[in-house]
Structures are given as structure tokens and as C-alpha cells.
């Protein structure tokens, strides 16, 4: 899976993107977040408050119950502030 992080999510995790192989038990965004949070303090801090986190799967906004597979591009970021 290709993972992309933006804004302060990127700052806290410390990288903008990475390739990961999903464990078998991870098949929704919610599981992905739980799994990522165990990877280190940066991940845990970035993903601590899901009310201020948004997700995109293959460049479409998605909710926590959205399914994910290894072939997906998943982006994790704060609510958007453009315009």
C-alpha cells in the first residue's frame, strides 16, 4: 500500500510517504489507523484524535469503515484549509 501524509500529520510522522505491506487483519481504514499507531510515538501522536483527521482512498475522501487493500493509495491529513 502507498501511504501519503500531509500538513501536521506529515510533520508528526516525520515522512511524507511510504510503502507498506498490510498485515492480513488490516482491511479497513480503522484497522489501518490502529496498526499505524503502534509503529512509533510520531504515528501515535499524529493519529491520537481522529476527529481532526481525514482520509482519502485512491484520491477520494473516505470514512473510517472504508475497506483498504495493498493495491490502494491511502492519504491521511487534517481537514482541508484551501481557498
Amino acid at each position, binding site marked *: 500500500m502507498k501511504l501519503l501524509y*500531509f*500538513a501536521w500529520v506529515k510533520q508528526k510522522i516525520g515522512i511524507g510517504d511510504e510503502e507498506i505491506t498490510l498485515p492480513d487483519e488490516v482491511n479497513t481504514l480503522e484497522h489501518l489507523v490502529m496498526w499505524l499507531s503502534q509503529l512509533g510515538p510520531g504515528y501515535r501522536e499524529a493519529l491520537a484524535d481522529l476527529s481532526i483527521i481525514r482520509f482519502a482512498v485512491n484520491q477520494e475522501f473516505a470514512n473510517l469503515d472504508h475497506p483498504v487493500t495493498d493495491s490502494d493509495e491511502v*492519504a491521511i*491529513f487534517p*481537514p482541508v484549509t*484551501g*481557498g
Partner: protein
Amino acid sequence: MIRVQKEDFDISEEISSLNRRNVGALASFVGLVRDSNNEITAMTLEHYPGMTEKKLAEIETEARRRWNLQDCLIIHRYGRLEPGDNIVMVIAASRHRQSALEACAFLIDWLKTSAPFWKYEERNQGAEWVKARTSDTIASKKWKTS
């Protein structure tokens, strides 16, 4: 048409470049980097290349579906900008003013809540990511029902 770019744009050139056939009204909006009380020294816009273009194209398609537009332009900049710099421009061209004005307001309201951009403000006292505003979400939602 949509454009995502680092470079500045010329407002009058962009307005002149739109299709004017059968057009009686052009409505435009330009968003600038605001310097509230001399505090902000710079603003950096980050975006999600690929998804940004996709979402802006969807916003244009939706505006053209709702209003009879002869032309439509969205330009959004990214990178480091300073107070007074242009950030975004939307233009809607239509036969009559009402659809041009409504489409213009729709374009910027929807863009603010659905295009993946993030603003980072450098201030005299440190720097921080701009928080999303509830008023922007409300402004965007009012178009869902129409």
C-alpha cells in the same frame, strides 16, 4: 478549466482569456493572503498532487451541471506566499448575472471544503497550520440541497 500552479496569475489576463461567446456576465473571486494585524509574515500552501486536480475538476463539472455556464476557470496556487499575494481565483461566465454570481460563490465555497490544500502560517511569534473553519463547512453545505 482548472490550473494548479506555483506561479502568480494576472487577474485581468485571466478574465480576458475566457470564452465570451454568448456571455453577458463574468463573476470572479480572488482570494489573497491576509495579514491580520501585521502578524503573518508568510503562508505556505501544501496540496495533494493528483487528488487536487481531480477534486477541482469535479467542482467545475458540478458547477456546469447546476448552472448554464459558457466558461469556467479555477486557478489555485501552492508554495510559499506573502501577505497580499494571490492564492486562488475562480471565474464563472454565463449569459446572465444571476447564474454567474451563484456559480462563482458555489465554486469557492465547495473548493474550500473539498480541495486538498493546507495552509501553514508563519507569524512573528512562531508558525502553525491553519485550522479548518466551521463557517466554511456551513457555507459549503448550503449548496448541497440546491
